[in-house]
Structure formats: C-alpha cells, structure tokens
C-alpha cells in the first residue's frame, strides 16, 4: 500500500500543528474558560464520535494491508478485544493483545490454507 500524494513529513507537520493548536489554546486561556461549559462539552463529544468513526474505518473499511483479512474475521477480532476487556476486568493490554492475536491466527490460517 503506497501513501497519498504528499510527503510524509508534510502530513506529520499538518497533524502536529492541528494538535498543538488545542494544547496552546489551553495554555493561553488557562483560568479564563470553564472546562465544564457547553462549548468544551461539544468539542469533547465530537472528538469521541470522530474516534468512533476512525475505528469503523480501520476495522470495516481499511485502506491498507488489513483489507486482505476478511471482514468477518476483523469483526470477530473486535468481539474478542471487547470481550476480553470485559472479562479481564478492563485490562487494556490483555484485550489489545487478544484482538491482535486473532488477526495473527487468522492470517496464518489463511496463508496455510
């Protein structure tokens, strides 16, 4: 999978500037905004929804090598990740490693069969 039309460092600088803007705004406006106010709440909710959409894209509509793994297996890996997270009393590492292990196992099986 090759990248888009821009150089990698330009993409990184765009992401870095876009992230630093918020950090700097917080550093400048300290003490002058209400962290619990409606504007901040909308920002928080929107970033969560966007992160959720990112997960959907990474799992269901992948652009890279993961597209070689069938959708059903990718969805099964999601179920395993969340299931292990729940059963292990919210152990993040156990959940992430189990989900990834599913993908590894499926890829080995696909390559072998």
């Amino acid at each position, binding site marked *: 999978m090759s990248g888009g*039309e821009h150089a*990698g460092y330009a993409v990184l600088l765009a992401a870095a500037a876009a992230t630093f803007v918020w950090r700097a705004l917080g550093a400048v406006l300290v003490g002058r905004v209400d962290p619990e106010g409606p504007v*901040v709440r909308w920002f928080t909710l929107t970033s969560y929804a966007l992160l959720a959409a990112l*997960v*959907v894209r990474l799992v269901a509509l992948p652009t890279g090598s993961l597209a070689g793994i069938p959708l059903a297996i990718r969805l099964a890996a999601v179920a395993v990740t969340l299931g292990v997270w729940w059963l292990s009393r919210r152990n993040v590492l156990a959940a992430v490693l189990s989900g990834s292990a599913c993908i590894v196992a499926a890829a080995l099986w696909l390559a072998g069969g």
Partner: protein
Amino acid sequence: MPEVDTRSAAIAGLRTAAGVPLLLVSGGMAGFGALAHDIGFAAWEAVMAPVVVWALPAQVVAAELHAAGADLVAIALAAALTSMRFFPMAVALLPTFRAGGLLSRLLQAHLMSATSWAFVMRPSAPRDPRERLAFHTAFTLTCIAAAALAAFAGWLGAAALPKPLALGLLFMNAAFFMVLLAESRNRQVLLAVALGVVLCPPIHAVLPEASMLLAGVLGGTGAFLFGDRLRSGS
C-alpha cells in the same frame, strides 16, 4: 511546610511512567509504526511522529487519510478534531503546576497526554506545584522516548516480521481505540460513540473522503443536542 524536593519528584515521575503507562504507550505507538510502514512513511518519519504530534489518534487519522489520498487541509482538520480533547485537559492541568511563563505552560501542554494527565491528577502524585511540574516533565519525557522507540520497532516489525505478525501489529491501532471508547462511563459520550459508529458507513458509501469528519461532527452534535434534552428531561 516540608521542603520542596523536585529531584525526588522527577525520579518518582520516571518510576511511575516505567510501568503500565510505558506498556500502553509502547503498544499503541508500535501499532502506529506498523501503520506508518504500511502507508509508505520513512522510518525517521515514523519515529518523529510521537515527538512532534504526540497524540496517537491524530497520528493514525493523518496516516489513514494520507493513505486514502486526502489533501493536507482535510488531514489537518480531521487531526484537529481528534485533538480537541487537549484543550479542556490543558485548562484543567496547567493551573496545578502554577508554571509562571507562557513558554513553560506551552511546553507542559505539548508534553501532556491522556495518560500523563490521568497519572498526575491522581491523589498519589506530588502536591507541591514545583514537584508536580518535575513529576510531569519526567513522566512525559520517559513516555515520549519509549514512544519513539516503539514506533521505530513497529515500523521495523511491519518491514521485517512475517506478514501475519505485521497484520496483528496493524490491528493494535483499532483495538486500542475501541477499548479507550468502551472505557467511557458517561452516557452522553457513549451516545456520541454510537452515533459515530452508525453514521460512518452510510456516509462513507456516498462521500468516502469526508466520512470520518462528517460522522464525527454529526455524531458529536447529535449527542450534544440529544444529551442536553436527556439531562433537562430527567
């Protein structure tokens, strides 16, 4: 009043980071490194990402959209939307350091991450503002150093490991974020997450390049409006 000991506080910050936080950061950044390789980033670009961006969602969004052929404005916009959380985090965290100059506040705001925020806000972190500053600086620098190494390891892994293992590394990005989202207890946040998940595929069918951005803004706004009604109704 006890004497201020910034050196011990810095060592405590380093020690606190060198446990679960380091494993989490390394896992996430190794996944990013693998993704960076998958989309054609050079090794040095993968390593620089956690240093200059230092926000895993923004890094993954940027890489993902770059691979999809999006232009820089769309990439910056989407990265900005995932990074908005740093604004309220900085507003809450920085006053606890009482760091005088703007430069010092900007530096701490850049070093801050969701993990460092959670750890320095815990009751077990130092109380004195100067000790807190030392604790946070040591904690975050340790995490960033590990993140850069892990990104490099992930990039190498994607390049050199057998394909199945490389695919497992790639999946770690999605796995980390879904657990992060599942961890939220707030109902309004869960509604935003659900709306983002439900809205993304249909929007993607019509406008593939803008699906993440639109699902985020519509989902967030929907949860904001509907959640407000829920709150006023109860």
